[in-house]
């Protein structure tokens, strides 16, 4: 199978800046991706996702009225979400630690910092295609496994298997 499979991918770009949408579209076109839908915020993106089956989402973070974090969270957890497993690449100029953590906790698959380059964008897409991640469902999170790798020397508690919740029993 050749890379012509790219021609069959449908990508949703969620970005409030028309110039950035246009640049992303052109970059995707240059890789052979032709089927592209655009939305200018999270609200219109959710509608677009419900109307058209997409394979991948590229989303900005700061948008109004619905930002990329709320949008990603809704895609992952809303009861009427058309595809809670869809890969989401968050593209943003906000690089502060709390923003990155918020994106991760909203269920974003990959994080791409602006200024973007073609190679950074394509490598994120390749990563998603090449190494799809397991999904995790727990009380407070649904999304791609946030553990990227196993640290051999890790000596802390294995919280995923040993999490406890205090329960009052009369």
């Amino acid at each position, binding site marked *: 199978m050749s890379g012509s*499979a790219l021609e069959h991918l449908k990508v949703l770009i969620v970005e409030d800046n028309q110039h950035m949408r246009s640049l992303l579209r052109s970059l995707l076109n240059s890789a052979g991706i032709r089927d592209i839908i655009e939305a200018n915020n999270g609200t219109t993106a959710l509608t677009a996702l419900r109307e058209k089956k997409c394979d991948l989402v590229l989303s900005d973070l700061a948008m109004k009225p619905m930002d990329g974090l709320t949008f990603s969270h809704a895609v992952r957890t809303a009861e009427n979400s058309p595809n809670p497993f869809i890969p989401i690449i968050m593209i943003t100029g906000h690089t502060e630690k709390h923003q990155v953590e918020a994106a991760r906790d909203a269920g974003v698959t990959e994080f791409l910092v602006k*200024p973007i380059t073609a190679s950074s964008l*394509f490598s994120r897409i*390749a990563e998603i*295609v090449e190494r799809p991640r397991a999904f995790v469902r727990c009380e407070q999170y649904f999304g791609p496994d946030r553990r990227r790798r196993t640290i051999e020397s890790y000596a802390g508690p294995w919280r995923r298997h040993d999490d*406890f919740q205090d329960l009052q029993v*009369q």
Partner: protein
Amino acid sequence: MTMKTKIKAQVIPPDAYPQMVTKAQAAGITRVLRSNVTAVTASRVIEESGDSLREAVRAYVGELEGAGLDFELLSEKAHEIRGFAETAGMMATGRIADGLCRYFDDACQAGVRPDNAVVALHVSAIGRTARDTNALSQMNDVVARELALLAGRKLAESRRKTS
């Protein structure tokens, strides 16, 4: 009485949910995405988008300059400029906007109010470099470095005052 119950996370492996492509297609796609031909084509796309991106950066710069002392709006616009400028080839503008973003972030983290003069100097330098892309890059480097030093010094002063 308090009892502890085990809460386990459910792990859904990749082959248990629908993938965007098959494994066979994935190999072809990654080959294309990582090929030199795609890289060259994409670089050309970015070059061709230069004018449009510079127009976008200048629009953001206008909004930055019109934001007065609304630090939230200034920070938002500075982040947008940082995200665009380097892709548009406006390296100095991007670097100074990056400095302003860091200053806002550091001030926020330290719980101190950003200094009006530091912000105004950054805004002015961003405006100048955005309009005069032929300005000497060496000069812009000096300006960016001096602004970063000034921001660091003012932040340290503010921290001392509040502690």
